[in-house]
């Protein structure tokens, strides 16, 4: 019983901590869409809901891991590619940690 109470307290504290944490900075954000444009160090991703489309700018430093039927370089991503980008929101904007090319055929 004592162990259960302690476990419940730990869970409660964890939940409170999670609720108190500011949204944004450390939370991973996943975006799926079509690459709209590619620039040095970044890309514009076409995302959206229904007919309400939006473009999201994502930074792609050298450290970004890119996969798509094998390991790829960031420079191999091109407009028209459908990707999933796992990003973190930083002071400099969205930064991709991992990008996966998706086969849509």
């Amino acid at each position, binding site marked *: 019983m004592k162990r259960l109470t302690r476990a419940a307290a730990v869970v409660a504290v964890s939940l409170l901590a999670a609720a108190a944490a500011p949204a944004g900075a450390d939370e991973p954000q996943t975006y799926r869409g079509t690459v709209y444009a590619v620039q040095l160090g970044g890309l514009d991703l*076409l*995302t959206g*809901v*229904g*007919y309400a489309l*939006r473009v999201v700018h994502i930074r792609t430093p050298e450290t970004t891991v890119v996969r798509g039927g094998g390991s790829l370089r960031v420079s191999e991503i091109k407009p*028209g590619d*459908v990707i999933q980008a796992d990003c973190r929101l930083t002071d400099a904007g969205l930064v991709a940690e991992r990008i996966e090319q998706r086969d849509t055929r």
Partner: protein
Amino acid sequence: MRRAALCSGFAALCVAAACHKAIRPGDPLRGLTREQRDRFARGKEVFKHTFTPATGLGPLYNSTGCGECHESPKPGGHGDEVEVQATAFRGGVCDPLVGEGGFVIQQHATPKLEQALGIDQEPFPPLATVRALRTTTAIFARGLLDLVPEADILAYADPEDRNRDGISGRPNRSVDGRLGRFGRKAFVPTLAEFNAGAFVAEIGVTNPAQPTEENIGGKPIPPGVDPVPEPEIKQAELDLTDDFVRFLAGPTPAKVGRKGRRGRHLFSDIGCAACHVPTLRTGRSPVHALDRKEFPAYTDLLLHDMGPDLADICLGLATPSEFRTEPLIALRDAKRFLHDGRASTLEQAIAAHDGEGSAARDRFKALARGDRRALIAFLESL
């Protein structure tokens, strides 16, 4: 004894008749629970609600509410509003012009936006290569279309026309690569996304699924023009609207006489049914009324090349001349036909079919006059 048997037979007939009572336009699906019927009714109120700038309308919009357009003969039905869309198609690549405000070109602006920018509608994107018109279609039975398994849709696809029947059919894809099924170009994968996107693109009402307003010709909304904080409606209102649309039944096709039955056979015989697949079946759903139901759909939800005369915008993978096979649901209440409403009669609509529809069109033209009338009578029963 004999009288009792007759009475019970009559009662059984009455029960059977009640079971087969025709579904009218705007009715909910049969078999909804009391709670689902309640959500349908409450969702209809959100659907019919008129938004104002103080409740989130705009700053650019086509309509002040869902029910302002989808209204005839009942909420969810056809409308006489025609919207404008535009994209750019260059080198085989489709650009939905998101940087310039997106492909839905809103025809109205709120007074504050008019005051700030001196515009009464969204500026037409300078990079657009073509302008398209889109009529307001009835949205009955969309909850059923939403649940047709992907594998069933893909089974109708024949992009290389391997069976050499002149009809290919291929799926469109959303921006993130999922199979599309909603909209005249089958660009949107799910009904929930179509509804959430429509709130923003058509009414300018942001919601938790799309909490950002679109830009205005590539520029941000001027300060003070759109004072309602995002999202402008709550998830609960979005969910209710979604349930209303999801639970809207397709009206029961009218009973047809001998002529109509002949027309139904001809519809298949001359090849219309190759794309306008008469019956589809939903997959599994926790909603009993949507779970594994066969329903009259008259679509394969695929893109078909309809020839250069009908061509307008590209969207996703759909080229300018490719359109999703329009579901022939509630056709009897439609006043205009085809995606842009150019046809005022069903005969005109059939005559405008080209590309993959040309063989069926030609066979229709070659029918005897009575047979053509029979086929039209059948279509008018839907």
